[in-house]
């Protein structure tokens, strides 16, 4: 189990302040909702938590059994789905999951069951992503984020482009994973906000 601790995390891009001193903790079994209007820094904050962006001030720590992990050891524990992250359009849904399973060292995994859990019918599993709608791509992206059973799951607008059925399936996925992972959800959707045990509002 991994806990993510962040202290006074701030970010500036040039002269513009995007985040101002956010502190808190992401704990296993709990869902942290990161809320705020467009441009309030939700995606930036998740990128900082993922180690993809360096904060201008403050720090982020990953703790496993009270041991602080090196940043290179964060990545195997992490699952991320975000709007600015794409998968390979020339590969099929199944090939994309196979690729990320190989990269993550996941040897036995039922990709088909995961895709079906997220509502992608078997008929689409072997079609290239380039032929998919935005909602279908989002389902594959979410499958990619969770196939290695991450200890930390960062979801940026997870129901974006999804229909009502898709939203229900993502809610089901979060419910299934919350016992084994620390989850952060960046959202403006009131239905997604309801998943949270705690929240951070970046509006101020």
């Amino acid at each position, binding site marked *: 189990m991994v806990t993510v601790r962040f202290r006074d995390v701030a970010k500036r891009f040039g002269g513009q302040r995007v985040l101002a001193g956010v502190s808190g903790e992401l704990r296993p079994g709990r869902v942290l909702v990161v809320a705020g209007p467009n441009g309030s820094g939700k995606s930036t904050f998740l990128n900082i938590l993922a180690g993809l962006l360096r904060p201008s001030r403050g720090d982020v720590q990953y703790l496993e059994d009270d041991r602080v992990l090196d940043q290179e050891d964060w990545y195997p524990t992490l699952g991320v789905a975000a709007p600015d992250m794409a998968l*390979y359009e020339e590969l099929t849904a199944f090939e994309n999951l196979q690729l990320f399973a190989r990269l993550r060292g996941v040897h036995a995994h039922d990709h088909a069951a995961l895709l079906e859990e997220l509502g992608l019918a078997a008929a689409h599993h072997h079609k290239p992503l380039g032929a998919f709608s935005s909602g279908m791509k989002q389902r594959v992206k979410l499958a990619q984020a969770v196939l290695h059973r991450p200890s930390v799951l960062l979801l940026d607008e997870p129901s974006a482009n999804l229909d009502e059925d898709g939203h229900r399936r993502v809610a089901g996925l979060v419910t299934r994973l919350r016992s084994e992972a620390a989850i952060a959800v960046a959202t403006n959707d009131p239905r997604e906000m309801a998943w949270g045990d705690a929240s951070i509002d970046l509006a101020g």
Partner: protein
Amino acid sequence: MHRSTLLAESLAVLGKEVASELRRRVALNAIGLFAVTTLVAVAYQIGPYGLAEQDRPFLLSALLWIILFFAATAGLSRVFVKEEDAHTAKALRLAARPLAVLYGKLLFNLLLLLALEAIIVPLYCALMGFAVKSVGGLVLVMVAGGAAFAVTSTFVAAIIARASGSNALFAILALPLLLPLLVAVIAGTRAAAGSPELLAVFPALRAVVSLGGVTMVTAILLFPVVWRD
């Protein structure tokens, strides 16, 4: 927590590159078009009889590598830019170790270059009447030169991937690294053409391996920083 081996991750990246390229054929088309066009143009204008006998080994060696060099540059430089353009780099950054990405993409570029050489060199020799006295020497120079070009192109491509105007930047950054390499491989090819002794290519080969080796070590040390930052 799962963790793959570096080799397995590198091969997964290589497999992805090959599958993507076979479906999109961006690099294959760029390289193939440039190589065939310049080869035909050079063969048509100069042909097997257009050069004086004493000039042939040097000029034909230089022309061969100019064709290979520019054809390769047209395709290899996009290996990282395409990840940034398609927004796939983020997923790759999170899932793979930096060195696995470097090795996978380097192996892909190397395969591409060796395939290009396997097609263009025999065609060039036939069309230009380029008689090579040491075929083994030529093969050694081609393989070592291809590897060194692949290393250098892949590393420079990684550095420029997130910059705007990356094509122009590739040329500017690659020039000082590739120019000495080009001089060395031309010397090696000339030596293979002029002497049946395998040993004749060794001085040039040493220079190629040294330049490629230094770039490889630099890439291994710097790439994780370039890729993560």
